[in-house]
């Protein structure tokens, strides 16, 4: 087939329905969050002392950490749907959740006696935490990958990892209300482990489904 012939075929192809990636991402978020929330309602649920916990700094910091991961990841993801896009300064915001965690850990080390450090770090349910965050992230990640298939990201693997990070942030936000461990020592150790699992799954899915 000569190039001029291919061009004739392309020109004869009808105008596509307009694709709006931003809208697709919003729709994916709605779908994915519904899935994650269903899982939360069925299998996880809020912790019994939720109303008392709401007044404490450590508890609320977990939600802030989760949002600090989810928001920049999502914004960057939407930007990278275009092939010519550059991450730019927005990528620096991905360090925000890590900086928040580090600051929390530093304060915790100061205000809590050394003998308490290890028990707080180990916490009560690290295994549940590192499995349930990726489980709740899975429907969000799948929906985001579906949305991004309409895009043309320059680096499918990295873009997929970003989708994984966004889903991890949102799943952590839900999970945080169940998790009985509030110490930054626990959060900074186990949450990022769950985030890494999600990012790795996203990178795999990106290479598999976002290549174009």
């Amino acid at each position, binding site marked *: *087939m*000569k*190039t*001029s*012939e*291919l*061009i*004739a*075929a*392309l*020109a*004869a*192809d*009808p*105008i*596509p329905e*307009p*694709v709006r*990636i931003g809208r697709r991402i919003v729709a994916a978020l709605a779908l994915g969050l519904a899935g994650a929330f269903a899982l939360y309602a069925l299998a996880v649920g809020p912790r019994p002392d939720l109303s008392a916990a709401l007044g404490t700094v450590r508890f609320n910091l977990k939600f802030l950490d989760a949002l600090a991961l989810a928001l920049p990841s999502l*914004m960057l993801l*939407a*930007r990278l*749907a*275009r*092939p*010519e*896009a550059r991450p730019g300064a927005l990528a620096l915001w991905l360090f925000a959740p890590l900086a928040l965690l580090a600051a929390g850990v530093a304060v915790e080390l100061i205000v809590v006696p050394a003998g308490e450090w290890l028990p707080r770090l180990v916490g009560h349910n690290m295994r549940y935490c590192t499995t349930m965050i990726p489980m709740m992230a899975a429907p969000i990640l799948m929906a985001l990958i579906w949305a991004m298939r*309409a*895009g*043309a990201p*320059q680096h499918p693997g990295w873009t997929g990892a970003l989708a994984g990070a966004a889903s991890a942030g949102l799943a952590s936000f839900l999970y945080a209300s169940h998790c009985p461990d509030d110490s930054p020592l626990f959060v900074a150790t186990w949450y990022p482990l769950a985030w890494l699992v999600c990012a790795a799954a996203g990178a795999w899915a990106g290479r598999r489904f976002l*290549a*174009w």
Partner: protein
Amino acid sequence: MAAPPVEDASLDPWSTMMKAAMAGDEGVYRRLLTELGRSVRAMARAAFARARLGDADIEDAVQETLLAIHLKRHTWDPGQKLGPWVNAIARHKIIDAMRRRGARRMEPIEDFEAFLAAPEDEDRHALADAKRLMDALNPRQRDIVQSISLDGQSIAATAARLDMTEVAVRVALHRALKSLGAAWRRSVS
């Protein structure tokens, strides 16, 4: 969150052509793809030469780029110039083609915009035939693509000959073009 619009995007002739094409002007679209193809060809040729890869797959890279431009044209922001967007797609596809040829180390590829002034016409010889292309299609799809591209028949004539509705021919053509893209992708990995 898109980057601020380039000041003279509205004066960029290619952006104007792409807008007309996306509004349904087939003639303009054909001319635009032909012009873009010439510059992409020059870009690919320079990249292949720099990597000492010979020029056997250059036309494949050009056709893959044009197909990607077509299938992904909704990712272009009409407030921006078309050139940088085409550049990103062409670079992506040229790198794919070079990997397939066994290139390990990627030399920097010059920007698409550097080739605007030095377009290259389609090679009239055997090289211009991209080999893999039609193998990816099932017989029906091949028939439709061939009828429209090789034999220059209109959608209406093709529909009449194959006893299909025009809508069905258009849908089949679109599916065929998408499976071409998918087939090329598989050949990379």
